[in-house]
């Protein structure tokens, strides 16, 4: 048997690619300028119909409305904590919209917008933050992993899933979501390296929202940009304006297409800004200025896109009102389903830990049963 025959499929010596070709330009790809005027950028064509444009806009509006309602619910004591995506709607919606139905996404904990695009009920996300249950959607149904709170760890699950898809010959691309802070974690590095070595169809979408809680990007990395890190793994790095939904979509689409064609993983840096606090438990006034916030508010991803759509005649007043009404309905539904939502049967706590639980569970179940009975008796 020749040596080649036992080498893992897809593992070839480094190709003759010029490493310089893997490097991103310093300027992020931008298709819409701050005023919403469209520019063609070679290499990143748009394949969107008017209906797609309206869908992108719709998902961004729904995301922002669900986000606002989530913050309200937290303020009213209904959620333990909530991590807002305000300002990152374009980065999340644009990137998730570039995935096909059979593709998968592995989120961190801030991906309400991407979740909406994948059809995950936002209630499921809020139940996680409420503590009704740890995770409340079926990842296989929506092809969207569980929220992952330990930073960057889900990138390895994404890489492994993509390796599985590749070994299986499946037509499937995996998107791995994480933030600028996560790029310092060992697991994110290992995920990028594994995906590159195995040429796995995995696209790493880094939402660079400028801060890891309070620590700014300048203290997170000395790399020229996050996208530059890609060259170290032998994959292309792309950089896009993450407040430009069209640029995010187009760049992500290119990365997803090449992964689907068997050309391996890529790193996409979406340059954006977290306009809210890190979570509802955070106080951003301690580490960033009002001026900085105002500068990014000027670049609001939804306002910018809306002015483009209106100028192009893609979005009329009636459609806008329709979408606003849908957003209100979604917010109402969220409140209905989350406010004072009861937790499930405590006996279920034992149900999902193991498929075949150890015998020692029997006595602990019995103890809980006795405690529940005594509580119910006490209540009566």
């Amino acid at each position: 048997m020749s040596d080649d025959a036992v080498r893992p499929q897809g593992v070839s010596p480094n190709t003759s690619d010029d490493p310089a070709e893997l490097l991103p330009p310093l300027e992020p790809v931008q298709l819409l300028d701050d005023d919403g005027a469209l520019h063609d950028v070679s290499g990143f064509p748009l394949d969107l119909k008017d209906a797609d444009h309206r869908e992108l806009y719709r998902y961004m509006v729904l995301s922002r409305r669900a986000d606002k309602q989530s913050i309200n619910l937290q303020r009213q004591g209904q959620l333990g904590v909530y991590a807002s995506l305000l300002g990152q709607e374009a980065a999340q919606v644009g990137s998730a919209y570039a995935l096909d139905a059979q593709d998968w996404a592995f989120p961190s904990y801030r991906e309400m917008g991407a979740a909406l695009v994948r059809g995950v009920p936002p209630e499921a996300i809020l139940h996680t933050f409420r503590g009704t249950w740890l995770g409340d959607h079926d990842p296989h149904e929506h092809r969207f992993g569980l929220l992952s709170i330990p930073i960057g760890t889900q990138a390895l699950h994404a890489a492994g899933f993509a390796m599985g898809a590749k070994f299986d010959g499946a037509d499937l691309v995996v998107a791995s979501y994480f933030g600028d802070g996560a790029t310092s974690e060992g697991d994110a590095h290992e995920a990028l390296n594994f995906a590159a070595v195995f040429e796995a169809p995995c696209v790493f979408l880094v939402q660079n929202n400028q801060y890891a809680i309070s620590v700014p990007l300048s203290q997170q990395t000395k790399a020229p940009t996050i996208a530059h890190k890609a060259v170290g793994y032998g994959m292309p790095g792309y950089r896009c304006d993450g407040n430009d939904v069209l640029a995010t979509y187009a760049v992500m689409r290119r990365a997803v297409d090449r992964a689907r064609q068997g050309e391996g993983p890529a790193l996409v840096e979406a340059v954006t800004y977290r306009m809210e606090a890190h979570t509802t438990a955070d106080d951003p006034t301690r580490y960033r200025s009002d001026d900085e916030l105002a500068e990014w508010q000027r670049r609001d991803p939804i306002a910018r896109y809306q002015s483009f759509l209106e100028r192009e005649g893609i979005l009329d007043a009636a459609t806008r009102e329709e979408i606003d009404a849908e957003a209100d309905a979604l917010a109402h539904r969220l409140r209905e389903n989350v406010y004072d939502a009861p937790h499930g049967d405590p006996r279920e706590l034992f149900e999902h830990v193991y498929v075949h639980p150890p015998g020692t569970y029997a006595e602990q179940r019995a103890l809980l049963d006795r405690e529940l009975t005594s509580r119910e008796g006490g209540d009566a």
Partner: protein
Amino acid sequence: MSVTMAAALNTALHDAMEMDDGVVVFGEDVGVLGGVFRITDKLQERFGGTRCFDTPLAESGIVGTAIGMAMYGYKPVVEMQFDGFTYPAFEQLVSHLAKMRNRSRGALTTPVVVRIPYGGGIGAVEHHSESPEAYFAHTAGLKVVSPGTPGDAYSLLREAVSQPDPVIFFEPKRRYWSKEEIELPIEREPFGTAVVRRAATSPGDPASAPTATLFAYGPMVRTCLDAATAAEDEGWDLEVVDLRTLVPLDVATIVDSVQRTGRAVVVHEAQVFAGYGAELAARVTESAFYHLEAPVLRVGGFDIPYPPAKLEEYFLPDVDRVLDAVERSFAF
């Protein structure tokens, strides 16, 4: 035929891969080299490079990608090259592998087997002789296994691969070359089945020799059997129970043995303080208190970092340390 534990493990992997195309084996040096202990020898040659392959040198990456592959539908069997190199993967093992099913309310299962050559007694350099089983036995969501014989190595590994739950599989590396007369394949037994390796001959008979049970797993099964043999010279009648799986624990077999012998000594290589022996001692005390003639005693390594190789004989429990504990038990 005479089979070493290393060969039994290799055959178990081979047979599991033969049976199920979804079983994939990966880790550091497990491909062409066949693993540093040759446990994966010739698997890549037989099953190809997508069923058995080398990974970059990154333990967290190995376990994390195994979780992703399991979510996709594969059954990964991954190797941590040595016990002391498991720690970089600790977060993936504890925060993700152990919890994925629970976090997804049963929607996701991650049937990953993590093989860890563990324990001392081979004169290895630092970080190559550790016994970290208590960390994982303490983590809900994992099953923890350690075979003590070649036959069990085969059957428990086959069972581990067929488990829908994640399994941490501790291979006692000092016993890799121990032999047993067996014919493979051996029928699998369910997890949670301890075995009486050596029965006390006349427990409960006041006129006969004093009795006690030695509880052990992995590398200490052999040591305890040797101790039981040596104890005959003292006129002691020792039973040896091999736990085989630490999670789940076969409490019934343990209690049954203590009820017959009246004394229990638990033996492991790991440090005694907050070790697995403490769990066993507590279980026995809670379940068989009135049958005990003496407190449950623990025998293990000292509560120090694993010593340099030239000093490991002073650290590791041996026949004398086991018999010393038995003597103390009889003195009560």
